[in-house]
């Protein structure tokens, strides 16, 4: 590599300036207001063409499937997206390309793969088309970028990615530690325009709890300008107040709360239901043929009205009991 190794050549898709983000956050004032609404209302109100979108959970685990489907239904265009291990969530967004250029820019750490299940043919088509701008990161780098934004500083230093093409094709810069003189990778704050996060319970104000791992969701909710939560169940504010240390995401960050039972399907929801490997394989299979994929997403997403309809149309309603049993069995 003959390029300047202290400055990544990757494009910066979002503004890391904390003062401009502060000016936005100043206007939120949502800490104690109720914000329950439907999925379609939340997406039409808070997601705009060209927005920078980020998705919570990890891969096929605790993902906000209903919101991702709704982005397709409402045919949003030209989105930027952050992908620390994103698998089925990314697969859904790429499926939206059957109707047009949904994704325009991707901050990639782990995309196109579904872990042990293999690669997504459609995601590969989209990412190999040359039509989507890509900037490279590691999972930790993206987590640190969100943490910088959540912290309210324009960058944070870290030690990984240095010396590799993952750094050179990122938008990181090298800084020298003022105390030790050693080089560090400075990663720019990432303030997504909108975040989708699925949680176990949430009150009408948006105070949310999850069971199991939290991945990057605490920081993602704080970093994002607008936050839409889907929740397995809406609970009372009283329940939040009875055990406030269990709150992971405080209502001050949240713009919309949508009750979506089984909302992580076909992904895994810790303690509730395991991932539907049959349906995930079906996705990968139909993707091999673009026409089959088009028919598949037409039938399951574009021609359904809601996530509940998707569960019916995909046959999920018949499998949920088994997925719950698998999850309970460990």
């Amino acid at each position, binding site marked *: 590599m003959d390029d300047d190794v202290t400055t990544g050549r990757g494009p910066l898709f979002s503004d890391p300036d904390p003062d401009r983000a502060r000016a936005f956050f100043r206007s939120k004032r949502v800490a104690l207001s109720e914000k329950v609404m439907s999925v379609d209302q939340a997406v039409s109100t808070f997601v705009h063409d060209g927005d920078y979108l980020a998705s919570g959970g990890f891969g096929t685990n605790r993902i906000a499937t209903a919101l991702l489907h709704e982005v397709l239904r409402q045919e949003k265009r030209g989105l930027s997206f952050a992908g620390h291990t994103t698998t089925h969530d990314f697969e859904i967004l790429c499926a939206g390309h059957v109707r047009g250029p949904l994704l325009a820019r991707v901050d990639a750490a782990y995309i196109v793969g579904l872990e042990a299940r293999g690669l997504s043919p459609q995601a590969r088509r989209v990412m190999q088309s040359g039509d989507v701008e890509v900037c490279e990161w590691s999972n930790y780098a993206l987590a640190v970028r969100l943490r910088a934004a*959540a912290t309210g500083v324009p960058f944070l230093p870290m030690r990984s990615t240095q010396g590799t093409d993952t750094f050179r094709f990122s938008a990181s810069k090298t800084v020298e530690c003022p105390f030790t003189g050693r080089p560090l990778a400075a990663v720019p704050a990432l303030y997504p325009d909108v975040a989708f996060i699925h949680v176990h319970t949430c009150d009408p104000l948006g105070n949310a709890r999850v069971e199991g791992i939290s991945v990057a969701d605490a920081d993602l909710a704080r970093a994002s300008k607008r936050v839409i939560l889907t929740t397995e169940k809406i609970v009372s504010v009283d329940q939040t107040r009875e055990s406030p240390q269990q709150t992971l995401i405080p209502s001050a960050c949240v713009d919309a709360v949508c009750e979506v039972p089984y909302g992580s399907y076909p992904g895994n929801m810790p303690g509730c239901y395991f991932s539907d490997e049959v349906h995930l394989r079906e996705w990968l299979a139909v993707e091999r043929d673009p026409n089959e994929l088009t028919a598949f997403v037409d039938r399951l997403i574009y021609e359904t009205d809601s996530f509940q309809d998707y569960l019916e149309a995909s046959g999920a309603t018949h499998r949920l009991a088994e997925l719950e049993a698998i999850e309970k069995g460990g």
Partner: protein
Amino acid sequence: MAGRDYNAIELMTCVAARFLEDGATVGVGTGAPCAAAMLAQKTHAPGLFVVFEAGGLGPELPAMPISVGDSRTSHRAVMATSMADVFEMCQRGLIDYAFLGGAQIDVFGNLNSTVVGPFEKPSVRFPGSGGGNDFASFCWRTMVMTEHSPRRFVETLDFVTSPGYLSGGRAREAAGLPSETGPYRVITDLCVMGYGVEGWMEVVSIHPGVTRQDVKEATGFSLEIPEGVAGTEAPTEQELHVLRTDVDPTGVVIGRGS
């Protein structure tokens, strides 16, 4: 304030409460600022979101806290979190108001709560910044409630613990502090002060029964008092009633039981 049916701390608390509008977020400590926030919640601002630096977000305070980290500050809170999480909410720009204190304040609203005398061997060591500097740096509008005396309102601080407008003008931004932030109001037992465009303190209203001369004599620096400055509106009966019966019934802050 002899002859009036409220004392100085009650007046200051009522006045402070009025600045906290519904839907706003405020960082408070113990004592009068906490009472002011509770009074605002129980009168015009039920949706006021109160945060305590040690980790309590949006509590339903069962009684006046003794420490900004005691269990009352997270009693029936919407979240009990870490200190860093709270200050990062502030740094991120989510907190509108914060109340600060100090042993000394200057004309730019800078505060000293660290030392009197030389730093290495001070004549008086105070606690230091605590979270004061952080609130003063991050929150959009900071407020001070303090007794008005020449010992507190001084020409030059022995130590700048927490930033007001620093040396005035754009000094805060030049130093790296967040844009558009800074001191907003100083509420004393004599008057309410605000700040001019260059960051100099100036009187906004004078309390009932207090003269311009009283204010000038109690201030250790040259203080702007505009011609025709307003009088502070006295506490209403309703404010005093809520304050005495509902906010601080045992009088630990306002100095009287109901």
